[in-house]
């Protein structure tokens, strides 16, 4: 029983990490209609930047966080301006967007290998990061607390942004009805840039959190992308709470299923879950509000 509780806790934590990553993707798809696979590159790029500023250049954690945010945000904006905007101008189909996005991801991975090499890069954990304690049946790590904190921060910030600021309201308006938004005087292109910036900044959080826990690898974005896409489908594509919910659900399933099943089945359970949702509940847990681009 104690083991099961521990597994469930681990599942929630890792699920929040998946959810954080999916959250940014969800924000972007809800507003722009683009299934932004290159989000994986944003994650890997910001993780490498964090490592670079902190470990390689030894500039301190504050600079490293700012540097990672800057690189992550810039990557998102560059992909929007350099890839998606021209595609939108020629009225490319969703399939073209998808292929373009995947290409950016793989080319980006190749670029990361070119710049940093294939060997993993690691951040030396400080005493602060290594702290952990037992609370009841749970072993609680500093990393767990950081993930919970980052999730709370991102979810609260985006919730407030989307309900109480004009830029956040315009995200939702453009996602809902771009034509009406335009007649109201909202600049679509500008809104897309803002939403790619906001969504990418959210991806920097899991990027940095991963960098302090595990070595940074060029393929890390792709690994997490698969989990995030499952989380989006399970949660309801285009739904913000759904991304979080889907992330936590797959984290818990992946972690808890191995209580009964051999550990090599943990990824299998995710695909089984995805399959069940695609067949039985394609709209996801919460009803996704996806529009086509």
């Amino acid at each position, binding site marked *: 029983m104690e083991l099961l509780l521990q597994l469930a806790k681990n599942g929630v934590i890792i699920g929040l990490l998946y959810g954080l990553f999916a959250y940014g993707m969800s924000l972007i798809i809800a507003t722009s209609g683009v299934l932004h696979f290159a989000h994986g590159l944003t994650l890997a790029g910001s993780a490498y930047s964090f490592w670079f500023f902190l470990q390689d250049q030894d500039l301190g954690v504050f600079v490293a966080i700012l540097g990672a945010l800057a690189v992550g945000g810039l990557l998102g904006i560059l992909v929007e301006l350099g890839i998606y905007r021209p595609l939108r101008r020629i009225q490319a189909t969703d399939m073209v967007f998808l292929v373009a996005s995947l290409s950016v991801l793989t080319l980006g991975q190749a670029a990361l290998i070119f710049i940093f090499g294939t060997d993993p890069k690691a951040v030396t954990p400080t005493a602060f990061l290594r702290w952990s304690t037992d609370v009841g049946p749970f072993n609680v790590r500093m990393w767990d607390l950081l993930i919970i904190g980052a999730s709370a921060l991102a979810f609260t910030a985006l919730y407030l942004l989307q309900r109480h600021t*004009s830029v956040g309201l315009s995200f939702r*308006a453009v996602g809902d*009805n771009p*034509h009406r938004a335009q*007649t*109201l*005087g909202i*600049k679509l292109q500008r809104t897309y840039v803002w939403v790619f910036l906001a969504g990418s900044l959210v991806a920097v959080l899991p990027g940095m959190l991963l960098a302090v826990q595990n070595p940074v690898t060029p393929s890390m974005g792709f690994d997490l992308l698969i989990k995030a896409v499952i989380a989006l489908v399970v949660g309801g594509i285009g739904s913000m709470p759904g991304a979080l919910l889907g992330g936590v659900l797959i984290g818990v399933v992946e972690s808890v299923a191995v209580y009964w099943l051999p550990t090599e089945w943990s990824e299998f359970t995710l695909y089984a879950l995805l399959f069940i949702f695609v067949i039985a509940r394609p709209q996801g847990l919460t009803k996704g509000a996806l529009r086509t681009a």
Partner: protein
Amino acid sequence: MLSAGAPSATDGGAATTAEVLRVEGLQAGYGKHVVLDDVSLTVGEGELVALLGHNGAGKTTALRAITGQLRPSRGRIQLDGRDVTGSSAALTAKLGMSMVPQGQNVFASMTIDENLRLAAAVAGGRPSNPRSAQDVRSFVLDMFPILKDRGKDKAGSLSGGQRQMVAISMALMTQPRLMLLDEPSTGLAPVLIDEVLAAVRTVNQQLGTSVLLVEQDTKRVLRVSDRVYVIKLGVPVFSGTPHEMHQQDWSQLF
């Protein structure tokens, strides 16, 4: 306030009151297909002007060309004396044109309250706005109390008539110099059409907002308009007051 003896659509004569909108020799279409040709019209300060015509007469095309959603192939459009021909939709909106499109004209997944706040935010900070956002908001909510009662509901849950009220309110929240309405009666029951048109007239009279109203329902529109233009197959065929319109042989106009 009413501009009696306003210029006809074709003579281009000076209006006795300040003109908010002036359109001269407008030609527009899609590709090589000309939908609208040589249309001229004006809307004076505080006027409610109707643009009438059959389905396919080119009314919506005219609105799209005026608001910058469609680039006109010929002609000139002035807003408050400033040439806005070929300007983007975002620019014309910024300068004070607010169009209420036909059909899906509210953000269905957002609450009524959020729809209104967004509209106010988009136009926020325009120095020419004579009223505070709060004032306009009170006015709108007084006029359409249902929007206050159901402020937390999703706009998508509203009936067709209520949605029109939200859409008009959104346009008003931007404090436009000119509100352009594209067939607000579409899909509404007759009693609701009267209600919506009455609301437009109220806005026009109480806030002094200039209105260009595109409609098919000629009889009802004549009751609320100051002046009317009629276009047929993209060409202007009549301009004048509702009184003058009643003296016409309508079978020639439509």
